[in-house]
């Protein structure tokens, strides 16, 4: 597990950067994606309005390639947007990382237990082998996206983690169904929610632990997992080894890492991270509004990105143009992607479907470029008919950004 390749991390990061810069004249690595700019000296500019917008690409973390380093402790690492042009599965070494409280850096596998308790017939304490033997092994391709992904673009700006759009990734998760693990204890009558806790406990007395719960009907879904595998490898420690919860279609705040406790609740969850934060207004609000009703943030809306071209890139007048990117349906399958702009609405071709909750490639060939393409963006619609909006509804925590992300291309 300890990949220990950080010893030569600095040398490697320099190499990578040089390779990227050398590629700037043409080829696959030609353009940094969207508004992101490598600005040399190990820094990247996320294009956050009003700043501060620059982030270091160092230090290297064990098992990680080049990442946008928002914070070393507890680790907060963002995937550079260029990674999303490379494929629909995000490699483990480029997958975003986010911890609220200090993370444990060591796991003793034989000693690890998952306590299943609360409203159950028989509380049990399960070993990792017990979990692996709890039921059929299931693979799910699903996007894990931070509720605050894109918060740094919020206007007006809001405090919190200042992400660009790279707090998302898509992986193949392997594990057993949560319902099979719950069956080891037997869910009692009156169960309303299932709550998860991990080993990342605050070191200060009385501080809220990062525990999260989901409704029982979600917990019983066939694709909600207790997972140990990520893209065919064991979960890296930074991603929650030995076990994490996977809730396809829901924001990653519920995907509790380093799982150690499963608790069945018979009523509402009044714990801090459900009752007080990770909540969104039930109706549109303005920055002046106070005391409005809120609900927990849960299912993800559709999103899409142009990954083939950077904002401001030059395209060849009179020539055909190939545009491509990635899209997601959120908590429902992706139905379609259109390229939209002033007076423009062109249906895009979709790539292979790797699962309802995964990224999907889209592409579009414009036969001839006849002029600049100003403020164009991909617009995803999901199977429930939900479409990305042209304007982002503001909320005080900057959650669930899914506005159409636009760029402009200059023809010459």
């Amino acid at each position: 597990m300890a990949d220990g390749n950080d010893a030569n991390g600095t040398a490697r990061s320099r190499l990578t950067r040089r390779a990227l810069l050398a590629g700037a004249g043409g080829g696959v690595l030609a353009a940094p994606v969207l508004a992101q700019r490598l600005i040399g000296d190990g820094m990247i500019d996320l294009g956050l309005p009003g700043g501060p917008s620059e982030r270091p690409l160092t230090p290297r973390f064990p098992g990680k390639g080049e990442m946008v380093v928002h914070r070393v402790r507890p680790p907060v690492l963002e995937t550079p947007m260029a990674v999303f042009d490379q494929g629909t599965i995000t490699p483990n070494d480029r997958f975003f990382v986010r911890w609220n409280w200090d993370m444990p850096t060591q796991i003793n596998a034989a000693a690890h237990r998952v306590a299943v308790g609360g409203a159950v017939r028989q509380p049990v304490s399960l070993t990792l082998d017990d979990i692996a033997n709890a039921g059929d092994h299931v693979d799910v391709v699903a996007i894990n996206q931070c509720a605050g992904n894109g918060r740094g673009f919020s206007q007006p700006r809001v405090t919190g983690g200042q992400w660009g759009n790279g707090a998302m990734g898509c992986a193949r998760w392997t594990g057993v169904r949560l319902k099979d693990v719950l069956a080891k204890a037997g869910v009692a009558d009156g169960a309303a929610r299932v709550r998860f806790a991990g080993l990342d406990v605050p070191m200060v007395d009385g501080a809220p632990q990062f525990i999260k719960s989901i409704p029982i009907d979600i917990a019983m879904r066939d694709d909600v997992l207790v997972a140990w595998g990520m893209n065919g490898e064991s979960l890296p420690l930074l991603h929650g080894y030995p076990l994490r919860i996977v809730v396809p279609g829901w924001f990653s705040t519920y995907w509790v890492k380093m799982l150690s406790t499963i608790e069945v609740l018979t009523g509402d969850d009044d714990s801090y991270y459900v009752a007080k934060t990770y909540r969104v207004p039930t109706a549109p609000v303005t920055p002046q509004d106070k005391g409005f009703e809120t609900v927990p943030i849960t299912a993800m809306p559709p999103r899409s990105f142009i990954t083939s071209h950077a904002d401001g890139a030059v395209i060849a007048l009179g020539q055909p143009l190939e545009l491509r990117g990635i899209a997601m349906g959120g908590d429902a399958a992706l139905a379609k992607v259109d390229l939209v702009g002033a007076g423009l609405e062109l249906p895009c071709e979709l790539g292979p479907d790797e699962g309802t909750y995964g990224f999907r490639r889209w592409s579009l060939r414009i036969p001839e470029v006849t002029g600049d393409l100003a403020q164009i963006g991909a617009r995803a619609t999901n199977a429930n008919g939900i479409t990305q909006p042209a304007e982002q509804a503001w909320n005080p925590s900057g959650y669930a950004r899914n506005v159409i992300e636009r760029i402009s291309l200059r023809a010459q």
Partner: protein
Amino acid sequence: MKHWAIILVGLLAGCDSRPDVVFADAAITLPDDLTELPPGPGRQAVVENCTACHSPSTMLQQPQVPRAKWESIVGKMIETYKAPVDEKAIPDIVDYFVAVQAAQATNPGGSAAGQ
């Protein structure tokens, strides 16, 4: 040696509907945080009160916010997250971040790493 063992388990498990999963002990060493808080009055108060739970970049990355917002952030750290903050240091901490953000505003892009 260890790698062979894992491959062998993998082969044996090939014909089983429920392949063996091997859970090994794991450990990582996280890199040191080299982020520096920029110099200025109140810096010491911030080092002493605000760096136990998170790197300084948590603060340095925040967008321009008014003094009252810094006061409410410090209040949230104390009330919600139980940060052991010296009450007498609060005005110095707030002054420090107001000054740091004023300096950031004159530096387009403004590195959140404080480098």
